[in-house]
């Protein structure tokens, strides 16, 4: 099939609409990554659909020269589900934010994940409400001072990855807006996953929550604060590759290679592990005592919802035959008036 497709470039996925995010917004980098990856997937452009909810990130579809649907707050997963179930051959992406997906749309997100509908969910997590001008979000850290919480927020934040794993997600990953190469790699893996692919993307809002991810993106400390999850590889990090991650009892701990243990002690990463327990530990690992894991936390095979929906219909038609409208209307107890016939069952 791919030989038939015209060769596409990033430009083919850029719409004629002026991009109107604030200058310096992390969304630009994510848009660029998506537009870079899509031409490489061997998918016809007309089969790509981007569906979003409400919020800064949800303006995403307007900038993509694909089919797009900018819907209502929190409901993108539900609308995309309907589209994907009825048109499984389409490549459907959901662009959403932490407020859109975790707050008003939380219910739809967890049900999407448990069903394993074949959608690619890009969660732009900037830990703030941007479009409504700076209120705390469900991923804001506790004690956050914002316009609506002048003396600090009281809510515990959601951890999106832990939430996704808890909801039974079959593909869970994390990347960062400015880590372009890494993000693009994750997007490619997500695109190839059958079922729901959930990607949390740390995204800087330079207006209302600037430097929210500086603890790991700052160049000088980046290597010490980031743990790359690579399948089949031991969990090792640091500029000098001198730190490892190992189990200590039921906990993960970071240790100095050579001094406190050897590479053999390290956890060897397996995103396909049937049991999500280690992924769950990693999802919640982070500063100050731990580097922030990025990459694919979970990628398991499970039947996609839409395939099963179609399968049931096809099986019914195969075993019982194509439905005949006349048979349906005239089913059950019918009787005839006017030609002298007796009632017939």
């Amino acid at each position, binding site marked *: 099939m791919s030989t038939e497709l015209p060769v596409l470039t990033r430009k083919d996925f850029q*719409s004629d609409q002026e991009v109107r995010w604030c200058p310096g917004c992390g969304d630009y980098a994510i848009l660029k990554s998506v537009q870079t990856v899509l031409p490489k997937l061997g998918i016809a452009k007309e089969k790509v659909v981007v569906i979003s909810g409400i919020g800064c990130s949800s303006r995403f579809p307007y900038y993509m020269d694909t089919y797009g649907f900018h819907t209502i707050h929190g409901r993108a997963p539900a609308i995309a*589900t309907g589209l994907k179930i009825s048109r499984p051959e389409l490549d459907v992406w959901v662009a959403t934010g932490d407020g859109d997906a975790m707050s008003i749309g939380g219910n739809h997100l967890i049900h999407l994940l448990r069903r394993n509908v074949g959608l690619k969910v890009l969660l732009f997590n900037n830990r703030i409400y941007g479009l409504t001008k700076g209120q705390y979000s469900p991923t804001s850290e506790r004690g956050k001072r914002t316009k609506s919480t002048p003396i600090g927020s009281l809510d515990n934040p959601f951890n999106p990855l832990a939430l996704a794993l808890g909801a039974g997600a079959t593909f869970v990953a994390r990347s960062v807006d400015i880590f372009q190469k890494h993000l693009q790699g994750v997007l490619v893996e997500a695109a190839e996953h059958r079922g729901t692919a959930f990607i949390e993307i740390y995204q800087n809002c330079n207006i209302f929550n600037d430097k929210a991810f500086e603890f790991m993106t700052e160049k000088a400390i980046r290597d010490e604060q980031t743990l790359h999850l690579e399948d089949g590889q031991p969990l090792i990090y640091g500029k000098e590759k001198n730190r490892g991650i190992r189990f200590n009892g039921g906990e993960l701990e970071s240790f100095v290679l050579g001094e406190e243990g050897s590479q053999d002690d390290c956890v060897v990463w397996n995103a396909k592990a049937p049991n999500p327990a280690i992924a769950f530990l990693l999802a919640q690992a982070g500063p100050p005592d731990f580097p922030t894991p990025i990459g694919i936390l979970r990628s398991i095979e499970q039947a996609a919802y839409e395939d099963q929906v179609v399968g049931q219909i096809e099986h019914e038609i195969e075993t*019982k035959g194509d439905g005949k409208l006349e048979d349906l209307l*005239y089913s059950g*107890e019918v009787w005839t*008036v006017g030609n002298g016939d007796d009632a017939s069952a």
Partner: protein
Amino acid sequence: MSTEAPPSGKKQAQVATETLDEVVVRFAGDSGDGMQLTGTQFTSTSARLGNDLATLPDFPAEIRAPAGTLPGVSAFQVRIADYDIHTPGHRPDVLIAMNPAALKKSIADLKPNGILIANTDEFKAGNLKKAGYEVNPLEDDSLAGYRVHTAEITTMTMRALEDSPLDGRAKNRSKNFFALGMVYWLFSRPMDTSIAWLEKKFKNRPEIAEANVMAMKAGFNFCDITQIFQTRYEVDPAQLPPGTYRNIMGNSAVSMGLIAASRRSGLPLFLGSYPITPASDILHELSRYKTFGVTTFQAEDEIAAVCASIGAAFGGALAVTTTSGPGLALKAEAINLAMIVELPLVICNVQRGGPSTGLPTKTEQSDLLQAMFGRNGESPMPVVAASSPSDSFDATLEACRIATKYMVPVILLTDGYIANGSEPWLLPKVEDLPDLRVDFWTDAEGFAPYRRDEKTLARPWAIPGTPGLEHRVGGLEKEDISGNVSYDPDNHQRMTDLRAAKVAGIADDIPELEVHGDVDAPILILGWGSTHGSITGGVNIMRAAGQKVARAHLRHLNPFPRNLGEVLSRFDHVLVPEMNGGQLALLLQGRYLKKIDSFCKVEGKPFFRDEIIQKVKEITGSEHVN
């Protein structure tokens, strides 16, 4: 077609047989007594005998309210006749009371000298107390005005099933079929329809089928032998228009209407729904029709249900969501999205008593204004209402026709009364159903998402997967033709006007309002939705008595038929009976500045014919009315 003699093996008792033109029977018992099933069986048999009929189920919202209590009473009323009838009747001629609570709730409705069949086994101290009786009403003079027939229905059922392998509880559950057997005897009906139904239903549990058949026959034979009734009755077949009939409930008619619309449009049917009384049966029924390529999606909530349907509509499906009043409220924002992105969608609201959770199992028409206006901003949407169980089929096809032709969400209103009520349906020929074929836009040359059809003002339906038509839609106001986001004030005015004009223009594509009865009458009774039967029945009686009266019924609530204003102006009085606080009256008065006599009722029950007649009498001062 004639009523066959019942297949009784026993000697025929010496009783008189009387022929009636109509009869109303109410089966009443505890929620667990199977009264809905019993009533449905009596209905099916009567339908097969060719009677015209109408049914009214009345059951509590609780699945099993405490046994023996008044809130736990479940009833099923059916009216059968040898002529064309429109309502399930008001007061029963025959009441079957399976316990004291059922008697207490229904006895006031029973006609004077009506027949009461009571299950004496349940008229014991505990149940009498639960129903609020200090003295057993079967043993004092309180029922002197009725023909009371008592029977130990439970005891006799258990005795009849002595040899059945079922346990005591299961045997006890067969007592409704004993009662059904008695009523079959009373109305000279054969049992074979019910026997066939039981054998099919319990194909894999033959012992259950057998027990119920045995109980039913025992009830029948009990009447045959004991002569507890002095008279048997017959109701001849009705003279209905020729054709093939089946009995149909409104929810089922909606389901079949959707399948028919799918087949006639060539679009796959997608139903997104969340269970809600009294609409869930449409979801149940459509989920069984996968051989028609139907996708049913039980969503996580009402909002997701409509949203999934909107996604399916974007993808080119015939998209539908079904709900009731509270669900419609939850869906409002999403429906508004479908309105502004101009995608076809049918929202079926099976109305129930409101506000809030209200009366889930009772009927009402109080969502008309919600359907019209229950969204933010200027959000015009077509509204179509079904007027009877079988009419729900045609109304559904009409809603689908408007939605796909005009690229607009349409609200289809039915209500609990017609959703669960049933009547004979003259089955249409498939080839006579409307042609709903739809053409998706495929031509990239000159394509613009909001370039409208000049006649319908519909925008093109360009579905994902079509090369060269990649475009974006959304809830933000869009620029005329291009569909790009626009905050321009003139454009917003233009788009608001266009959306309104598109819906208003549908008036040219629907039939004019037809007036029935006396065109020179002083009064027009104008109805919408499920009041059709009561109004028609009332008008027929008034006219038969020599009174001049006219009636008309609205299928389209938005836009109204183009001649509605002119019709209203012709009559001195316009009476609008509604099961709400006067919602259609408000619309009519606002639109046509015509004084309306609003007749409102929200008792969870449909209008009775006699109430309509009485009201007309009050307004016209006529003395011709019976």
